[in-house]
Each structure stands twice: as structure tokens, then as C-alpha cells.
């Protein structure tokens, strides 16, 4: 009986939030665009290959074709300087960009949530120490961390599981992808800090509530208290923050691409395509417009969705 009441209450909370979310037209708009984008990016590349035979890394061998063509029937977005079809590259770049966003956010979720929750729940000296560690990492330039990670663990020293992961997700014979996964990992490692702070704040306000005290009294282990009782209750802000982490990670990846530290050729991301395009904006504007607008639209949708989720799930918290 008691259980039933709880379940019902939980369902209504989420259902309520969902209803509120649906009311927010901008968020719905964001969700639709994002959904479409994900579907396009998944089915797009094979479809293009099937209809026109173009792949993202196909460089024509005829010297005359190796230049940037404006949009045409054959190449709806034009081609880049190497004569590669831009549409195919934007779609393939979308895979990478969205993966960067999502995988890095998952890494930052896993690390940030456990770290923040542990620090917040244990409190006292341990909390103080753990938070100072966060402060220190916060002050270390992440560009240095990225360089070190990419150079030390890149190439022959790539950890086996990264190679395994990239093979599973990218198909065999794609060693180039492992560097990208390293980048996901590196970006995740530098973006968990704020997440840890957010979660800690939530846990601090939750840990003295009755249900935690009750669980403690009945002898539930610390681990279980943190991960079975506290974290699920702090999920609202975490989801909100995670939605907002995705676009910020994507922007960071774009910045790294601009510095030449981003994805590995022949792969591209929206960020690296935009960074290449901006150099030629005066001559081949389509090289910037298509990847740029696609990326901006996606970031737009993600931000709208994040805002909507915040309003729906947790109208009380402020951002940060």
C-alpha cells in the first residue's frame, strides 16, 4: 500500500514535468529539431552513399575536380577545397559532434555525479578536501590537459578499451577514430567539475531530510544511501545541467579544432568544418554557412531544450 502511494507520487512528478515541458513551445521546437538532427545524422551518410555514391572522405582523383564547387544539384551544399561533398561531410561531422557532446557529457555525468555526491554526503574535511581538488583542477588550463592526454595516450599508447570502443562504434579499420574517442574522454574529464559542484549543492540540501535519516537508521550502507536515495532525488538539476553541458562541450571541441587539436582527419566535426570554412568565407561562403548553420541550429535546440527542462523539472534552481 505504502509502496503504491510512492510510485504514484513519483509518476505524477515526472508526468507533471513532461506536461510542463510540452507547454513550452520553444523546448518542444528544440526537441523536434534535435530529434530530426539525430535521425538525419544516423541515416544520412548511408543514404547519401546509396543514392549518389559520395562518402565524406572521397577525394576525386581528377585534378580539375579538386576544388571548391558552389552548391549544385549533385552537391546540395557544394564541395570543400579537396572536392569532397560538403553534405556528406556535414552529416558525418554531425555524428562526431553529437557524439563528442553526448559521450563527453556521459563521462562528465559519471565522474561529476559520483564525485559531487560523495563529497556532499560525507561532508566535513573530506568534502573540503575534495572541493579544493576541484578548485585546483579548475585552475589548471584544460588546453594543457588535452595536449597531454592526446599526446601521452595517443598513437601507440592508446589504451586498449578506447581502441575497442572506437572499433565497436566506428567499424573495423578505423584506427583514426580512437584519437577522437580520446578527445571525448579528455573533454569529459575537464567538464565534470561544474557538474560535481551542482550535485554537491543538491546533496547538501537533501542529506538532512527525513528519508535519508530513516535509511541511515535502518542500516542501509553509505554507498546505497548515496546512489539509491540521494542521487535519484537530485536528478532534476543534473539532467538540466547535462543538457546544457552538451552544447558547451560542442563549442569547446570547435575551439580545439580551431587550434588544430580537434578531430583527426579525414573525420570532421561541425566545429572543424566551421573553422575551415571561416578561413575561406570571402571566397567560398558555403563552406561556412552550411556547417555553421547546422551547428548553430543544433546548439539552439539544445539550449532551448535545457531551458525548458529546467523550467519543467526544477523551477526553483538557478543556473550554475
Amino acid at each position, binding site marked *: 500500500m505504502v509502496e503504491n502511494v510512492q510510485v504514484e507520487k513519483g509518476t505524477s512528478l515526472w508526468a507533471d514535468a513532461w506536461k510542463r515541458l510540452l507547454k513550452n513551445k520553444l523546448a518542444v521546437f528544440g526537441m523536434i529539431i534535435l530529434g530530426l538532427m539525430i535521425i538525419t545524422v544516423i541515416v544520412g551518410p548511408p543514404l547519401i552513399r546509396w543514392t549518389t555514391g559520395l562518402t565524406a572522405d572521397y577525394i576525386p582523383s581528377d585534378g580539375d575536380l579538386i576544388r571548391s564547387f558552389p552548391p549544385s544539384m549533385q552537391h546540395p551544399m557544394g564541395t570543400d577545397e579537396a572536392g569532397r561533398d560538403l553534405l556528406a561531410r556535414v552529416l558525418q561531422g554531425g555524428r562526431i559532434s553529437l557524439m563528442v557532446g553526448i559521450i563527453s557529457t556521459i563521462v562528465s555525468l559519471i565522474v561529476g555525479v559520483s564525485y559531487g555526491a560523495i563529497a556532499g554526503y560525507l561532508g566535513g574535511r573530506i568534502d573540503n578536501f575534495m572541493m579544493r581538488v576541484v578548485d585546483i583542477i579548475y585552475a589548471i588550463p584544460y588546453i*594543457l590537459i588535452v595536449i597531454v592526454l592526446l599526446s601521452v595516450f595517443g598513437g601507440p599508447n592508446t589504451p586498449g578499451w578506447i581502441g575497442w570502443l572506437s572499433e565497436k562504434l566506428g567499424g573495423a579499420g578505423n584506427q583514426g577514430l580512437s584519437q577522437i574517442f580520446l578527445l571525448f574522454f579528455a573533454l569529459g574529464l575537464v567538464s565534470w567539475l561544474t557538474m560535481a559542484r551542482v550535485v554537491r549543492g543538491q546533496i547538501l540540501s537533501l542529506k538532512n531530510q527525513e528519508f535519508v535519516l530513516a535509511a541511515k537508521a535502518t542500516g542501509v550502507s553509505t554507498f546505497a544511501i548515496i546512489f539509491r536515495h540521494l542521487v535519484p532525488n537530485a536528478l532534476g538539476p543534473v539532467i538540466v545541467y547535462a543538457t546544457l553541458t552538451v552544447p558547451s562541450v560542442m563549442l569547446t571541441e570547435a*575551439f580545439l579544432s580551431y587550434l588544430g587539436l580537434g578531430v583527426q582527419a579525414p573525420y570532421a566535426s561541425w566545429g572543424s568544418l*566551421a573553422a575551415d570554412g571561416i578561413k575561406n568565407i570571402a571566397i567560398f561562403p558555403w563552406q561556412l554557412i552550411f556547417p*555553421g548553420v547546422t551547428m548553430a541550429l543544433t546548439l539552439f535546440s539544445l539550449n532551448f531544450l535545457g531551458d525548458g527542462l529546467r523550467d519543467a523539472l526544477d523551477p526553483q534552481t538557478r543556473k550554475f
Partner: protein
Amino acid sequence: MLSFILRRLLIIVPMALLVVTVTWALIRIAPGNFYSTERTLPPAVEANIKKKYGLDRPWYEQYGMMMLNIVKLDFGDSLRYPGQTVNEIIRRHLPYSATIGFFAYILALLIGLTAGIIAALKQNSIWDYGSMALAMLGLSVPNFVLGPVLVLVFALGLYLVPPSRWGGISSLILPVITLSAIYAAYIARLTRAGMLEVMRSDYVRTARAKGLDEKTVLLKHALRGGIIPVVSFTGPALAGLLAGTVVVEKVFAIPGLGNIFIQSVFNRDEPLVLGIVAFISILIMIFNLAVDISYGFLDPRIRYE
């Protein structure tokens, strides 16, 4: 309150030293060194260089020497630019970044606060959606795209301002706008959210009930509370801005600290990297402290033990 500030100030020093240590370790782990170039050096030349810079000594000795000097606030000479001390470089290039950062933040505050307040006051109106959509645009366009586009239009198309390089107020306009875009967007969103929350709160309702006029309610009560998220954002943002932002400095060829820092990492210029990291980390911590203190003044509910 005072003891709180003192405690936080005292902890800054060891934390900065820790940051420096970790950074030092990272540079040492990263392959490559400051003197390598396209051509391989003969072993004799390499040995001379190692001897000159003490790189032939054991690592703990090198680390000890470095820390000792840093405690004395002397970061030594840059390795890439011999004859220039790290302190000198920071002192020389900070003003460039700081000027641009300062103006960019002022501009961001002006735009962001105005847009945010209007959006909050006229919630769900065209003003609200318009300004929020603009803010979203600011958050969605990378500044390495915004900068060159502005240059193309205003410097090379209309010839209103110089395309890049430092010199005169007109050369500041484009970098300041480029830099402020994303901050203005953040501030607008934060202000809107903060204001909306405060306006629903009891004390604003009370103030209204007391019959105070709308202007006083807004400026004295609602704004003061609603601005808190902006203040907490200002801390790290300002530190980052003052220390320079790489993209804007690269695009506009401004001799600021941000670009120099990135170059020093690529050059493996250890003293310069450490010097700038130490400087920035202290800056961040001080700004964060200032933010915490200012909470006390803005929000009477927050107290420090």
C-alpha cells in the same frame, strides 16, 4: 566574516602552489621540449642546451629550484624568449587583455542586464522571446566565426574600422563586440531567470503590498536579488576575460596574455606557462572570494560563520 576572508585568503597560496606543481608535471609528461625544431640537433648542441638550463640535473632538484624561485615570486626567464622575464611578459601583456576584457564585460553587462530585465518584466511577450532568441544566438555562434564575419563586413566591406592590430579606440570596437557576445547572452539569461524567481518571492510581494511604487520595487528589491546569479557568474568570467581570450586575440592580432599563454604551451615554455597559470589561478580564486563576499551584501539571507 573577517575570519572567513582571512581563512580563504590564506588557503590561496598553497592551492596556487599545488596548481603550479600539477601543471609542471603535465608539461614534463608532455612529449617534446622548448628547443626542438624541424631540424634534429647534434647531440653536442643538445647537451649544451641541457646544461645551460639545468635540464641535466635530477628532476627533484629542478622541481625544488623552481618552487624555491616561485615562492620568491620569481618565475625566471622565458625559455622561448631569452632575456625576457616571465614577470615582465605578464606585466607587459596583461593590460591589453584586461582592457579588452573590461570593456567587453561592461558591454555584456549593459546589453545582458537590459535584455534580461526587459525579458523578465514582459515575460512571454515578443520582447522576451526576441531577446532570449538573440541570447541563444550569442551562445550558439562560436566566436571564431563571429569575429571574422564582423571583420569582413565592417572592416573590409564598409571600411569603418581597422581589421586587426592594436591601436586607437576604433581598433577596440570589433574585438570588444566579439568577446562580449557570449557573455551578454549568459548574463541576459541569468538575469531573466533570477528576476523571475525574485519577483515571485515573498519579500517583493510584501514590498508591493506596502504600496511602494513599481520602480522602487524593481530597482531596490527585485534587481538586487535577481542579480545574484550574475554576480556569481562574474567571478570566473572576469578572471578569464582579464587573462585574455585566445580566439579574439588571434583573430584580431592583439598582443594579449591569452594567445601568449596558448603559444607558451605549444612552445613548451615552462617558466612562462607556470607563471601565467599561477597568475590566473590566483586571480580566479580571488574573484571567487570576492563573489562570495558580495553575496553577503546582496542577499541578507546568506551569512558566513
